[in-house]
């Protein structure tokens, strides 16, 4: 694996190096935007604080960040893996279409807004800490999991307007507490043991392995799920009459 120092390159050169090398470690990242955009293959390790728009349109490559990421990570990502050993900023995984995004720490506002799924494309976003408001707003498909690990006592996993306008997909929360002002068009229920084993365990296995977390401990907690209520479809609002 090639190792390069981001300090020694300008933003364009850095992006070029990442594009030209399948396996690369970049040290001293500091605010450089759009790293790893639309990459189809390769393993990229970024150390430091990469800038906004990291892994936008990612299309198959794997990106591992040792540090915090900023805003708009994995915007419209299509495939591949992003793992961040730190926090992510606002607008994480906006309109993500496929692939996996794993955040060890917290996410900002508007995480997973309008994520999608289609046929074999199943977008998956897992957040280890807590999130800001508007988590999974307009969710159209795919899966979001919020674990609330290492959150201070009394801190909520989600902010205001969680899952507002959601009409497909699933949001799992490691709590039995319903998010505040959850829309009445959504269903909220606690997972039973079988649901946890069958639905959650397969989704969390890779996440736990990458960040060296104890999956059994995580799964021992209560989990709940938010889904669109099929009886209260938005069709009635939008359909021409």
């Amino acid at each position, binding site marked *: 694996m090639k190792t390069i120092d981001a300090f020694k390159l300008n933003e364009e050169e850095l992006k070029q190096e990442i594009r030209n090398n399948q396996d690369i470690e970049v040290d001293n990242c500091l605010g450089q935007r759009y790293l790893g955009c639309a990459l189809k293959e390769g393993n990229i390790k970024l150390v430091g604080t990469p800038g906004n728009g990291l892994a936008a349109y990612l299309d198959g490559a794997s990106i591992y960040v040792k540090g915090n990421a900023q805003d708009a990570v994995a915007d419209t990502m299509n495939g591949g893996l992003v793992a961040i050993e730190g926090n992510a900023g606002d607008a994480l995984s906006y309109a993500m279409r496929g692939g996996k995004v794993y955040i060890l720490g917290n996410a900002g*506002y508007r995480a997973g807004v309008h994520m999608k799924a289609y046929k074999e494309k199943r977008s998956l976003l897992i957040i280890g800490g807590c999130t800001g408001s508007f988590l999974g707003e307009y969710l159209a498909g795919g899966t979001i999991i919020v674990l609330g690990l290492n959150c201070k006592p009394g801190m909520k996993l989600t902010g205001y307007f969680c899952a507002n306008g959601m009409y497909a997909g699933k949001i799992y929360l490691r709590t039995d507490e319903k998010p505040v*002002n959850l829309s009445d068009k959504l269903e909220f229920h606690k997972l039973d043991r079988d649901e946890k084993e069958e639905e959650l365990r397969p989704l969390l296995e890779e996440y736990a392995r990458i960040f060296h977390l104890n999956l059994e401990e995580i799964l021992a907690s209560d989990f709940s799920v938010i889904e669109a209520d099929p009886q209260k479809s938005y069709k009635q609002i939008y359909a021409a009459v």
Partner: protein
Amino acid sequence: MKKEGEVRIPSGCAICGIFSRDGSPVNGGTIAKSIALMHNRSNGLGGGFAGYGIYPAYKDYYALHIFYDNLKAREETERFLDSHFDIINLSKIPTKQVESITDAPLIWRYFVSPLVHKIQDSQLEENEYTARCMIRINNSIDGAYVFSCGKNMGVFKAVGYPEDVAEFYRLEDYEGYAWTAHGRYPTNTPGWWGGAHPFALLDLSVVHNGEISSYDANRRAVEMYDYTCNLLTDTEVITYILDYLIRKEGLTLEESANVIAAPFWSTIAMKDQEEATRLAYLRKMYSSFLITGPFSILVGFTGGMMALNDRLKLRSLVVAEKGETTYFSSEEAAIRAIEPDLDRVWSPAGGKPVIVRLNKEAIV
């Protein structure tokens, strides 16, 4: 050339701030290094800084920073200043030739103290007297623009990238316990010196990233209280709203934040009764000062700093701490550019102010 407000300006922008709670001096070059990292958030049409604690030798005098378009404006302004203030010291603000910064106006600095008999005649206290005099210069003397008028603080701004503006004003020659900075991205306007951030009145300064959709409602409201929006840009109105709420109405910073970034009624309804009553009171009492649209702002004032996002957090804002220093920025990388090893980094929630003040024992 059309000035701001005659055209619409959707803006990008970058902001950052440093506050040393123990009062230890921070060089102006440090804040310049931080904002420079976010170069791509600006487009070279405005950059500026506010420093606090930078004029210890003149800390009891108002430090006026004034742009003049021509000599006539300067003469007229100096006549006005002479008849209203005791001028202790006056000079050009030292600048350095920077290739990218052109069309500089005349830039002067005055350390002044209001004439005692004038204050007595006016029956105003000295801050109000000084503020009114400055608003009068900006309103009535063509080609003169007071862009800074607080004690022991100063604003430095220009058309250019912030790092070039810092070089132009020789910011590394100043030291203060607090700094804010702004890089501007006005996309539909020429941008001009007066329209760069920070905007300041007395010691209160504001840098802002965002766009206020309630601007005109807010402008009409502050104009009811004798403020005039000369620049027709949204940030100016935030400065006047905060001056009104804090200095004239006596609201705390937290309360002012609850006014300008008031929670939704649905959010207020979820609070316990006492808090809901308090928030509803502020929202109803000062409804015209609710600021809608995306914003992140840094408010500097003597002895403290406040960071605030709009209630939906439509602009990014990161706060970090290292020892006795608090950092604020649109991007975490800009903080790590000057302090890689931070004790704590977090993103405040929308509408929740982060307020830092000098420690009691701090000497500045």
